[in-house]
């Protein structure tokens, strides 16, 4: 199949919708996701928030087709994401929490791997495509470096650039701002919003970052103990009355809290 090589050529490719129905996931006796159902509209930024261990990343892996559900289904424009043909058709890209860059390859080779392996276009065009992605992420000077030579923020940006080279219709981010300072977190949030606007890509972000969720998310889902508590816009989220969700969204450091006093006694 001869695929277009530049972002401009792919303007005919519209963003995709994601449908999750009754999704459950168990690892041994431990239930990580319980009957999660949600619908992600083409072209939106959908943020999945929740405390650590609530099953956010597991849900993202299910959407990416990296894991088989115990029950329920995930469909991308009606197709199963576990099928390689679906991934190929929609160029689904996932930005991993730690970047998951190939350590034995330079930054340039990391980015060029997808178009080279899929023989999308001549090497010169691939070079243009890679350099364009590096430029968008302000990484032109890092092309020859290896992942071990990069800072945490740069690794995240390279991972985003690698996803961008794929010209995806569905872009998934796993904790894109974790372990970053507030300035870099804001930069990454801006990049996510810009990419969505510029390339009309459906974006799903898993994050702890309340500021990111409320600033760039068109809709935000809150996942707790594997259950979906709410799906709402940022404005609606401020009106939510579920005490656990309110506590999660507005954490307070309370030194009179019995938990803290117990620790102090230790």
């Amino acid at each position: 199949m001869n695929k277009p090589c530049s972002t401009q050529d792919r303007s005919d490719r519209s963003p995709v919708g994601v449908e999750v129905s009754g999704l459950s996931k168990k690892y041994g006796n431990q239930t990580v996701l319980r009957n999660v159902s949600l619908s992600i509209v083409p072209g939106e930024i959908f943020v999945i928030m929740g405390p650590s261990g609530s099953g956010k990343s597991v849900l993202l892996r299910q959407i990416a087709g990296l894991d088989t559900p115990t029950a329920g289904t995930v469909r991308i424009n009606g197709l199963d994401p576990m099928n390689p043909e679906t991934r190929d058709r929609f160029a689904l890209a996932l930005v991993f929490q730690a970047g998951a860059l190939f350590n034995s390859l330079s930054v340039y080779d990391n980015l060029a791997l997808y178009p080279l392996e899929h023989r999308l276009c001549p090497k010169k065009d691939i070079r243009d495509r890679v350099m364009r992605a590096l430029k968008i992420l302000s990484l032109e000077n890092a092309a020859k470096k290896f992942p071990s030579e990069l800072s945490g923020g740069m690794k995240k940006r390279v991972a985003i650039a690698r996803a961008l080279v794929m010209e995806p219709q569905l872009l998934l981010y796993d904790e894109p701002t974790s372990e970053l300072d507030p300035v870099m977190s804001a930069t990454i949030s801006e990049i996510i919003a810009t990419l969505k606007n510029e390339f009309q890509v459906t974006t799903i972000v898993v994050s702890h970052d309340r500021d990111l969720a409320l600033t760039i998310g068109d809709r935000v889902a809150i996942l707790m103990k594997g259950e979906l508590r709410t799906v709402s816009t940022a404005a609606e989220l401020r009106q939510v009355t579920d005490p656990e969700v309110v506590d999660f969204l507005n954490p307070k450091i309370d030194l009179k809290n019995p938990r803290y006093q117990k620790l102090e006694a230790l």
Partner: protein
Amino acid sequence: MKQFNSVFEGLGSAVTLAYRSFASLPNAPRIIKRVVEQAYLGGYSTLPIVSILSFFIGAVLALQSGISLQNFGAKQLIGTLVGESLVRELGPLMVSILLAGRVASATTAELASMKVYQEVDALVTMNIPPERFLVLPRLLAVLVYMPILTIVGIVIGWFGGAVVCEYVSFIGVDAEQYFHSLTQFLTITKVIDGLIKSEIFGFTIILIACNTGLRTKGGPREIGYAVTRSVVLSLITILILDYFITKALA
């Protein structure tokens, strides 16, 4: 029972891995560069240690057989004994043991760390099958370099034996007699049998290494366990296989 199940699970997953890897054989032209790279890493860089080890195995074999055969007045057969032992058994086996210790351990460590640090997941989301990208180049490379390493090992082992015969006075067989006796009973069939063995051993070792690496779950500690498991499993498997292949080729 649990361990019994895990043996069969491992076997099933190795067979599936081999099948999936060779199913992407039509894409072989695009992985030639990686095959060459793996042949260099696995074959060329193992050559010095294979040479040293084979030389001394040949030397020790000649020395031991010299001492033993002297009692039976059959010293003139030292060459035959060293030649055949190296061609049919010790050459393929020693190269395989080195391969397990050096290449298989490195392969498992690399793939296990790629699995643990989600690089394998990244390949899957990019729709690049790990079997094609990571496993097939290694399997094709071992099929290329294993017979070469074995032949080099065998020939250097023969020379090790020749040096002992030439310079150890009590053996009383010179290098010319040694090579005469070595070539007298050596046939091309025996050499091919040895090379078949080494191909099967090499393929099995790299398959076990890749399979163990790609099945690794958890954190950095599991990478270490995976490497140990891969080397031990490779050694046990080739020794078991050795018996059956020898029987089949006899």
